[in-house]
């Protein structure tokens, strides 16, 4: 079959490179680059997860020996006991790795690369070489970030937000090259994202198949389109701020230091990038969820255009709400009110999306597959995270709960909740990416464990936060009023460990299916979008002939059509369609 496909492609002038290095390592094929980003992200997910487990150990059983880590040399650990400086490093690197090296590589780098050309009916990206560079520059950033664990003084420990003046000079944290490498790594990563986003946008504007109008794009592609625009315009602001921070640290300038400079300026620049970043993370998750829900409800997505417009609205609003991260940083109260109002407006497009997801499920002929379960998991967690966001948007409430575990609960429901959409995407496109099916049973086990323990881990954090439990504190038991939360912290930690263990079925399922899974047919989910018209896995160049697009991506259960799906590239012949 592959020979037939290959000869078909030879006619179109797309030759698959033969050598190992050009095929697996320095590949310019968007599908291989997508897989590379996926594996990079999954590898970093393991590291980020282990850091989270160490954080939880310290919070449940403060200043006790972590089992099995007695060998870690001082001053990182003292006979297995986590000192405060290491604790700071743990939560800083946990957040940095999860945001920049797990969610972004997997959702934007991995699925963005894999899906965009094939779902719009293109052979590859507009700039394949730039695409390869994007991955390898991103990999260098990852190496720099990992290397920072091994320099003298340890890795960055100023929080992922890296607030100045704490991070402005090495004396404040005691970490010199750890933070310098952190800055350099994110600086390099910005170039990777820049190359990626230029590629995505150009490809989406210029390379769509005949008939693939903007309003026939699948919503996951819409979401990646908007994400790429946000990346393109938001990340350079962080790059500028990181440059100035680096000057402060290395050349002893005073941009963000109190001696002449303005510490608060960092917060403004960081969050001007940081809030669009939240949508860079969550929009692809929303897009994937929309696609998966529609496919397995066997119904058109409810309110396609409203979904697209609400994503555009979210992207626009994300530029004018950064001040809501800074309500207690010192701000004119009038300005605080303005930011409160713009933030509240975000609830409108978010609610449109949520109700449209529910409307898609409503009355559908639901197929309870693993991707569908994870997509529903994402929606339910997003509702909880979205509602707690409204609490924080309100300045009077936020002043009380700011920098408490309520915030930690909120952003884990939103940002860590993305992992549900990520798993939905992995289970959904695994057959297309690797040509094999995953195990349904083990997928369900993975979902139940992840969903239950995710909620048992993060929901109680709301109570901690309202009870005054600050985030980022080393040892809650040092505060008399927090002693009552000792048991709850133990409960959360045990849940978190179970959440970690629940990923074992995923790892086993992933690796087993990769080598021994059932061979995937071309269209195992009976879905409409173009990638399911290509072989599994698609050859170099994706399609034997240029696909032609006749309709939108969500034509499920169309009256008068024999099957309950209608691919975008299938012409409705006289036999198939009867006009009522």
């Amino acid at each position: 079959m592959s020979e037939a496909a290959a000869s078909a492609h030879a006619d179109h002038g797309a030759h698959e490179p033969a050598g190992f290095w050009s095929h697996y390592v320095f590949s310019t094929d968007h599908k291989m680059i997508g897989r590379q980003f996926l594996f990079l992200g999954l590898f970093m997910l393991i590291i980020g997860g282990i850091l989270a487990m160490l954080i939880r150990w310290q919070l449940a059983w403060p200043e006790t020996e972590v089992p099995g880590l007695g060998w870690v040399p001082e001053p990182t650990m003292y006979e297995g006991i986590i000192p405060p400086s290491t604790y700071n490093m743990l939560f800083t690197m946990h957040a940095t790795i999860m945001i920049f090296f797990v969610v972004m590589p997997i959702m934007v780098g991995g699925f963005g690369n894999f899906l965009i050309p094939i779902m719009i009916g293109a052979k590859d990206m507009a700039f394949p070489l730039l695409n390869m560079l994007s991955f390898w520059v991103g990999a260098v950033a990852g190496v720099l970030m990992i290397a920072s664990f091994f320099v003298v003084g340890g890795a960055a420990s100023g929080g992922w937000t890296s607030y100045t003046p704490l991070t402005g000079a090495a004396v404040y944290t005691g970490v010199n090259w750890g933070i310098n490498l952190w800055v350099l790594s994110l600086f390099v990563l910005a170039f990777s994202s820049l190359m990626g986003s230029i590629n995505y946008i150009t490809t989406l504007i210029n390379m769509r198949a005949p008939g693939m109008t903007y309003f026939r794009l699948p919503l996951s592609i819409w979401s990646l389109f908007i994400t790429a625009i946000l990346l393109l315009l938001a990340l350079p602001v962080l790059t500028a701020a990181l440059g100035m921070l680096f000057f402060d640290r290395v050349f002893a300038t005073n941009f963000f230091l109190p001696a002449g400079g303005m510490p608060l300026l960092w917060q403004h620049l960081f969050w001007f990038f940081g809030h669009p970043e939240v949508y860079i993370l969550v929009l692809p998750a929303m897009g994937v969820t929309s696609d998966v829900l529609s496919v397995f409800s066997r119904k058109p997505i409810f309110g396609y255009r409203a979904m697209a417009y609400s994503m555009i609205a979210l992207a626009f609003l994300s530029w004018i709400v950064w001040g809501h991260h800074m309500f207690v940083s010192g701000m004119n109260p009038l300005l605080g009110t303005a930011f409160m109002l713009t933030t509240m407006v975000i609830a409108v497009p978010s609610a449109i999306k949520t109700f449209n997801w529910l409307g898609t499920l409503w009355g559908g002929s639901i197929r309870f597959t693993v991707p569908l379960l994870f997509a529903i998991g994402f929606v339910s967690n997003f509702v909880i995270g979205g509602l707690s966001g409204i609490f924080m948007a309100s300045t009077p409430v936020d002043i009380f709960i700011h920098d408490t575990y309520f915030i930690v609960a909120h952003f884990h429901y939103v940002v860590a909740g993305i992992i549900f959409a990520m798993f939905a995407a992995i289970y959904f496109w695994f057959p297309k990416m690797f040509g094999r099916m995953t195990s349904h049973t083990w997928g369900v086990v993975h979902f139940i464990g992840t969903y239950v323990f995710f909620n048992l881990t993060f929901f109680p954090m709301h109570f901690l936060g309202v009870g005054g439990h600050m985030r980022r504190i080393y040892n809650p038991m040092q505060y008399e009023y927090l002693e009552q939360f000792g048991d709850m912290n133990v409960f959360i930690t045990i849940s978190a460990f179970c959440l970690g263990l629940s990923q074992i079925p995923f790892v086993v399922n992933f690796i087993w299916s990769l080598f021994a899974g059932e061979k995937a047919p071309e269209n195992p989910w009976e879905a409409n979008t173009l990638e399911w018209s290509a072989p599994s896995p698609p050859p170099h160049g994706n399609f034997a002939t240029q696909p032609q697009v006749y309709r939108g991506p969500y034509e499920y259960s169309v009256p008068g059509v024999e099957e309950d799906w209608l691919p975008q590239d299938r012409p409705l012949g006289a036999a198939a369609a009867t006009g009522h």
Partner: protein
Amino acid sequence: MAREATAGILREDVAEAVSPVSAFGEGPPPPSRPEPVISNARLGLMMFIGAEVMFFAGLIGAFLVLRLSSEVWPPVGQPRLPVWITGFNTLVLLASGVAMHRAWLAAAAREQVRLSGWLLVTAVLGAVFLTIQGYEWVRLIGFGLTMRSGLYGSTFYALIGLHGLHVLGALVWVGVVWRLARRGRYAAGRTVGVETCKMYWLFVVALWPVLYGLVYLY
């Protein structure tokens, strides 16, 4: 799979009321993909310039916040910036922009000699700009204005220095295009290489008066 048993409530209702023509518009696609309005290279470069604009917007925003929150600017005891010589230098850079535009017109008219000639003029004017800038920086450092001498120096070298780096990068690009033009690369009318170079050069040229006005004059 069992499709026949899946008729939901909505589906039956819809079947009565609506024809199978969808909200997306059912219809045959055009026979082939239409030629893009803006080619890949131009579009990619436009986005790169967009990202550069945001990068400098971040720096300029930081500069303005720091500048406006200082009571005395420039701070007492700091050397004055060379307004007149840099004003002349501004004219040099603007002239290089005009030269680049002439080069582009020559490329469009397929006049290879004039193309490489105007590219050379562009590159020389750009090099003159950088040389004068460099000479002035050396003098300012001699007067005690450095990255470490306070915010005045830090913001000056950050904004003006990063612009200088961009001019240097663009200058290398112009040099490469000049060499390719001498070898007749653009003789066949495929001038997108000249055009993207022109777009980037005009970006670094257009950025300069903004920075000159903010840092030197304001």
